[in-house]
């Protein structure tokens, strides 16, 4: 379970430089991209989120590199960017996202299940998606999710409960 590939901090005695940035932050791009894709469900937006995250990391690399868990910092920035960015786009009437692919496989086909779950998942709010992704998929505790999402643990629990209820309802599992 989980795809957390915790980036290690800069080795003791080594200054935070371009080299350490490329060695520590850039390899985390794949994990961040999966995280952003899980929340945003849009390749371009996910790429944008990761670029923004790495850009912020680079600008603050002096301090980020010396953190005990730079990966956690990157995660928090990425999650917050996903939520805020998408909120902005929605308010501008961003068009509905496409399904996983354009094909329409037969019912019972694994691809059909993926389309069903994707359709249901897209009905969740961004915060519900972030809570489910971080807690269910990445294995973070509710308290850790709260830190990443900038809210209280109780709010995370509410997002999880409502998100799962929506998924069960949409998928006919309730």
């Amino acid at each position, binding site marked *: 379970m989980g*795809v957390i590939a915790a980036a290690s901090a800069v080795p003791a005695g080594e200054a935070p*430089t*371009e*080299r350490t*940035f*490329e060695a520590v932050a*850039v390899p985390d*791009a*794949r994990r961040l*991209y*999966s995280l952003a*894709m*899980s929340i945003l469900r849009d*390749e*371009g*937006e996910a*790429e*944008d989120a*990761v*670029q*923004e995250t*790495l*850009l912020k990391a*680079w*600008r603050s690399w002096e301090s980020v590199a010396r953190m005990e868990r730079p990966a956690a910092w990157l995660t928090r920035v990425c999650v917050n960017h996903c939520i805020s960015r998408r909120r*902005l*786009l929605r308010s*501008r009437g*961003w068009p509905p996202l496409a399904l*996983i692919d354009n094909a329409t496989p037969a019912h019972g086909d*694994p691809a059909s*299940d*993926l389309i*069903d*779950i*994707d359709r249901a*998942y897209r009905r969740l709010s961004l915060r519900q998606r972030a809570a*489910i*992704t971080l*807690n*269910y*998929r990445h*294995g973070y*505790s509710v308290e850790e999710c709260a830190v990443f999402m900038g809210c209280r643990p109780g709010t995370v629990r509410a997002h*999880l409960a409502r998100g*799962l209820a929506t*998924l*069960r309802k949409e*998928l006919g*599992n309730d």
Partner: protein
Amino acid sequence: MIDMDPGLDTKLRAFFEHIEASSPPSGLTDFDVAAGDRRRRSMFNVFAGLAGAAVVAAGVAVFAIQLRSHDSPPPAPAESSQRLPRFKVHGDTRVLVPVTYGRGSVTLPAFTLAPGESVYVQVACKSGTTADTVQVGQNQRFGSAIAGCSTPTGGHGGWFGTDQGGPSGGSVTTYVTADPAVSWEILMTDGPPPILAPRGSRALRPVAYGRGSGRVPEFTAAKDYFIAIDCSGAGSLTIVSSLSQAATILCAQYAQFYFTPSEQVPGKPVSLSVVAPSGVGWEVEVFEDGGPSPGACATLRDQGGLKPTPCAASSS
């Protein structure tokens, strides 16, 4: 972790595995801040040759900036088979926009400039078609362009804006305009840009660089030498030689400045001091042959020629 009924668990697990199986765009995994090779000698010939092309291209590249909303498509990554040359930056250079790869037209993340701070833009491009140009503009200003994207080696060049921070600094948004078939990469740093060698000159010692007041390592010239100075930031820079000769530059006015001390003693060691506010970044390089006449100062013109200029900063 949340409790999940088996049916939903199976579906969600497959769903997330499907997402995680997709590869991130190569532009992300190639996200790259060029390591600072502190001596840019190897870049000089490239820049000297290509800056001419960049200046010519900039002259014909007057274009109205199309303000793009954030709804514009994000940059498509450059293909790995079309990797472009790496840029170089000094170790103490402030990176405004890290090396960013893209394709077609995009809006880059905004950055903030300090008062008087300038921007040095480096761009490289490659095209799969006859589309040949990448244009770069900032805020409401007209921009500059790099041509030669469709050539076998691609296009490459840079330019320097001396007034971009303005008297009070501010936010800068950069717009890249290119055909979708053009892959490009861009790096934006604060100044100063690399020193360009005037026609016929020969570098005597490696570039020294710094911020605020500092010293240039001692050197010995066998014959007449001249000093090239670049600076960026709010305020003036004065360079003083150990023979008590000095020149003062208003950094917002000159990007490339050349000074030939009048009293030179071949074979005698010379040390140089730089006096500047802490916000001024600078580069100093010493050349032989091809500089201004003794006691004179000059700035660089197109094609590597020199234009005489006063050796002391004026307020105009």
